[in-house]
């Protein structure tokens, strides 16, 4: 059972009242009401976000940080105001610490290229965990390869929990960065990131946390976490695609080289050389995703209005219900049974490939993800090529869990005992 402290204090959240905020939820798929359980891949967008995008394109459309005309002032104000919303949302002390990027993936690549790369020497190490998304493995591998450094891995156990007792072996004096996922996309594990950060800081090792699956489900405060970098994607947090956030401590950002060169990130440009602006502008070359940032701001405000503790409490209850219903079906093996989980129920159906499960569920209107979830090392750990993943948001209901259960019974009917 997944329980959180928030369960005790928060008034309950009523998805019935919220669902009309999400137009895409109201449709039929193959004659059945859509049951959208693929929120870890991307979330649906509330009308507040759609309106913000619409308003920008209909009324304020212009470039930022350039023109003196009214539209440009409006769009610049909205864009920078979105930065302020992100700052508040993450509990950062300055909006200069908020860099808009394309998504969590670009945020990690930026830190790998501009922060870690120049500091890496042959024999150095980068530490990741066994449950990382490919986006938190490959960028580090690329810079490690270039520098002759190596990637080390903190292992996990068969519930999908990190083996913290192994930390002393893999966090060494050669470790130059610890990169860890806050909430696992494939397993739903909520990692004890406070402990990871404390252990790393003791050794003076900076920490990047991948918050792509945390931000949509729980309150995140980067100052309280004590990490050095935090990344997340807008589209997994009810915002538009193509926008994400890198939060970085100011003292780090200020010492970092630019990631990409171009307009808006320079102070002066001459053919003999150029000088660069202070962060975050230094890392936002070219015209940014203005509409995306504004839409993300609207999404985060929507989440704040609902209340992250309320969201967390509601989802914990829903996940607990789903775990019980789906987990008790015959022939179902749950993949990832950590004691602290958020939003994700990953499983395999005995004798049936996840792909077939996904196709059958889709015919009943139930959208789940099937595959390796961009976490092949996780699949290898559990000895499966792929899983079925139902991932929840606050707009999902118990009825939808029941629809999933019904669909899985049908899978068993078609494929036989």
């Amino acid at each position, binding site marked *: 059972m997944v329980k959180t402290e928030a369960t005790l204090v928060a008034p309950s959240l009523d998805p019935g009242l919220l669902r009309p905020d999400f137009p895409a939820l109201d449709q039929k798929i193959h004659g059945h009401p859509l049951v959208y359980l693929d929120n870890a891949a991307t979330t649906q967008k509330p009308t507040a976000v759609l309106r913000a995008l619409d308003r920008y394109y209909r009324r304020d459309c212009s470039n930022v940080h350039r023109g003196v005309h009214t539209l440009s002032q409006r769009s610049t104000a909205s864009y920078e105001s979105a930065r302020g919303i992100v700052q508040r949302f993450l509990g950062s002390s300055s909006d200069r610490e908020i860099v808009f990027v394309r998504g969590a993936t670009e945020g990690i690549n930026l830190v790998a290229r501009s922060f870690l790369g120049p500091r890496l020497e042959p024999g150095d190490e980068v530490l990741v965990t066994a449950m990382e998304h490919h986006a938190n493995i490959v960028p580090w591998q690329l810079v490690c390869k270039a520098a002759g450094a190596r990637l080390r891995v903190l292992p996990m156990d068969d519930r999908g929990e990190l083996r913290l007792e192994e930390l002393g072996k893999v966090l060494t004096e050669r470790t130059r960065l610890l990169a860890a996922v806050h909430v696992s996309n494939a397993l739903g594990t909520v990692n004890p990131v406070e402990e990871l950060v404390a252990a790393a800081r003791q050794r003076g090792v900076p920490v990047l946390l991948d918050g792509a699956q945390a931000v949509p489900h729980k309150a995140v405060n980067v100052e309280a976490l004590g990490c050095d970098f935090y990344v997340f994607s807008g589209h997994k947090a009810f915002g538009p695609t193509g926008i994400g956030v890198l939060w970085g401590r100011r003292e780090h950002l200020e010492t970092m080289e630019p990631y990409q060169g171009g307009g808006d990130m320079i102070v002066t440009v001459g053919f003999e050389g150029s000088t660069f602006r202070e962060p975050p502008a230094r890392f936002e070359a070219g015209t940014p995703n203005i509409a995306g940032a504004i839409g993300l701001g609207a999404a985060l405000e929507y989440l704040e209005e609902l209340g992250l503790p309320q969201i967390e409490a509601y989802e914990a209850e829903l996940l607990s219900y789903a775990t019980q219903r789906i987990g008790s079906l015959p022939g179902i093996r749950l993949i990832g049974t950590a004691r602290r989980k958020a939003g994700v129920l990953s499983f395999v159906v005995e004798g*049936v490939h996840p792909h*077939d499960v996904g*196709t059958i569920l889709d*015919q009943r209107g139930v959208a789940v993800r099937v595959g390796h979830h961009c976490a092949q090392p996780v*699949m290898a750990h559990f000895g499966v*090529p*792929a899983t079925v993943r139902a991932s929840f948001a606050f707009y999902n209901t118990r009825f939808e869990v029941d629809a999933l259960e019904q669909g899985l019974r*049908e899978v068993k009917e*078609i*494929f036989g005992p």
Partner: protein
Amino acid sequence: MIDLRELYQEVILDHNRQPRNFRVPEHPQRQAEGYNPLCGDKITVYVHVDQGQIRDVSFKGAGCAISQASASLMTEAVLGKSLAEARSLFEGFHHLLTDEGSGPSTGGDLGKLEVFSGVREYPMRVKCATLAWHTLKSALEDESATVSTESPNPTPSGGP
């Protein structure tokens, strides 16, 4: 609404449960590996060609019901056929899966392979059904590299 039984016909379920020619030959003459990174399907096809004729064909691997049954039925279909006949079967099979509106029998006599006609309604699953065939083609052409459904030209499906 499409009936799921059209896709998961009894023949397909049967070949998935008990794939035919599911073995590694003692002395493989030609072989190739196929891989679909989107769903993790992996297959190795072994083929023995003598005087332009497929004398033996078998496979090993794991994947969804569509890919397993397709591999199994493929081995039955091409056994004893000439290389040209096998190629023509693949063309007919491909046509069956991808050409909307065309009758199931346009690609010549596909025999049992026609049970896959339902796959046409599920574009995301076409690659599952063709993986074994692409792999066989590669084995026949004696290419040693792994066949991937996603290379060299990535397709728009998939993602994190």
